[in-house]
């Protein structure tokens, strides 16, 4: 019962109080938009919690899937903004005609589909290759990290046709709505919140089903799961695809709210940081993933404005201290403090 009150408080605060505060003029639209972006990160963090917290697979390329979603939607917005002309960066790069893979992104519906299908498909292929040869643990982490590095380098190139180092920016409208408009920003914020709630609910259902129990069983003793006649690879593959999908959804909502997406969002560091959100929040708990993503990013905003040079120190120390002393993360710490020892699962 008490648990439900926390959920209600969370939703009431972000869905009612914050927007109301904005309409009253107390909260700036930038703050609202900032939280909207945090929600996108939280959606991706849910995916990481599923794959790492529940299944024990450390995937270090989630930021790449996040960016696939972002780039997809950004390509669509850029095409709509530039109308019949080529996007500006292509003109600078002396691209004569629209590259073929840009063409489908002219339609919004197709963009939505592609933004979900491409990351899932890639995750499926990558996961299939890796899980088939029983690559796990450290090997999995390192190979996915190398993958993130390679993809990042690929996106940095101008020839890739995705804006190179500068990424994609200067998009003005989505579905004909001006992105600079306050109400559109508010709408995107609410949309992100809604999708976060939906994603949370879906993940809750997944983790509380027998499927979720198999995932935890895989984390605890993979060989026992095999000998109990579950095809471990199918389960791993499924959760890897779901995690990629969640990351891509987060990414899709992220690009319209920031107005820019660059390869910097998908470098090796970005993926590790995403994993750390979950670790800091408390892995193996969905609450932890959401709390971690929101808190770390909130902290980042505060720290970079108050003491700009110290953020990396703070983040570094947080990494170390969390891993060494609070391996249950923030949520675990809270549970301990309130002395309510409930089973984690």
């Amino acid at each position: 019962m008490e648990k439900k009150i926390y959920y209600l408080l969370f939703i009431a605060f972000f869905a009612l109080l914050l927007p109301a505060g904005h309409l009253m003029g107390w909260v700036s639209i930038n703050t609202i938009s900032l939280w909207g972006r945090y929600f996108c990160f939280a959606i991706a963090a849910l995916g990481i919690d599923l794959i790492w917290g529940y299944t024990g697979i450390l995937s270090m390329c989630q930021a790449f899937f996040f960016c696939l979603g972002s780039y997809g939607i950004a390509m669509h917005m850029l095409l709509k903004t530039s109308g019949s002309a080529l996007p500006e960066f292509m003109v600078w790069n002396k691209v004569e005609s629209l590259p073929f893979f840009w063409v489908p992104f002219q339609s919004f519906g197709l963009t939505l589909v592609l933004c979900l299908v491409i990351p899932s498909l890639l995750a499926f292929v990558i996961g299939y290759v890796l899980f088939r040869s029983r690559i796990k643990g450290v090997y999995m982490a390192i190979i996915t990290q190398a993958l993130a590095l390679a993809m990042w380098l690929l996106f940095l190139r101008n020839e890739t046709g995705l804006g190179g180092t500068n990424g994609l920016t200067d998009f003005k409208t989505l579905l004909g709505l001006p992105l600079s408009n306050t109400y559109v920003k508010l709408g995107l914020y609410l949309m992100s919140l809604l999708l976060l709630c939906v994603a949370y609910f879906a993940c809750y259902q997944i983790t509380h089903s027998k499927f979720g129990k198999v995932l935890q069983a895989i984390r605890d003793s993979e060989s026992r799961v095999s000998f109990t006649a579950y095809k471990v690879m199918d389960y791993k593959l499924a959760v890897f695809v779901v995690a990629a999908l969640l990351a891509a959804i987060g990414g899709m909502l992220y690009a319209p709210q920031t107005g820019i997406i660059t390869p910097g969002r998908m470098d090796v560091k970005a993926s590790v940081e995403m994993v750390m959100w979950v670790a800091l929040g408390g892995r193996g708990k969905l609450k932890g993933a959401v709390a971690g993503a929101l808190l770390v990013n909130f902290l980042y905003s505060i720290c970079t404005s108050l003491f700009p040079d110290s953020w990396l120190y703070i983040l570094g120390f947080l990494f170390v201290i969390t891993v060494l002393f609070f391996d249950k993360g923030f949520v675990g710490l809270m549970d301990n403090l309130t002395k309510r020892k409930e089973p984690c699962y």
Partner: protein
Amino acid sequence: MLLSVNNLAVSFGGVQALSLSHFSLQPQELRVIIGPNGAGKSTFLDIICGRTKPDTGEVYFNDRAIMGMTEVSIARLGIGRKFQQPSVFPGLTVYDNLLLAAKMKKDILSSLFFKPSQLLKARIHEVAEKIGLTKVLSSIAGALSHGQKQWLEIGIVVLQDPKLLLIDEPAAGMSDEETYKTGELLLELSNNHGIIVIEHDMKFVQQIARERVTVLERGKLLVEGSFNDIRNDQRVIDCYLGRNNTQLENL
């Protein structure tokens, strides 16, 4: 013939771990395998359940060649394995451990939309009763004692309802009373299942070895026969822990 094995050989880094010319098991037979450390007993079970790939050899389960199949396919055919080190899901409750093991459709979609039937619940409680874990059904498996984990793992294997159970040192870490109960459980199971048990505890072997006992030594079959034959076989006494095998002589 439930299981038959021909010319099985595997070596690790130049050491011949197993070289077995023939082995067979009848349905509903309970076979005990004994042998000194490094005789290849666990490796033998590892090969049958698909965990280790042999260098050469054939394994037939119900006249079906199972070499080269994955652990999952072998498990689905009806071979259950209990390991030397208890292998349960320490993060899940005892109930969930048993639930996951129970025989049912195990693909992703069925798992996602799974609702336990009354029949299944009853079956789980029945097995829990048998392995004496009814009182701890809702505790986390990782918190159980060593002996309880052994039983839980046996319970997991039983719930899979396999035709062949491969049981590796079930009595290790158990008190005498627990060991005896385990033996009775195995004997009861052998009414419906083929069972291969690896064991060192000779008292326990005597309790459960109603039929034949197989002795392995350095990867090779040394002798096969009834418990009494084995106990009096000089070769076994010689090989087993050297010449002074107190355990065998005391019996």
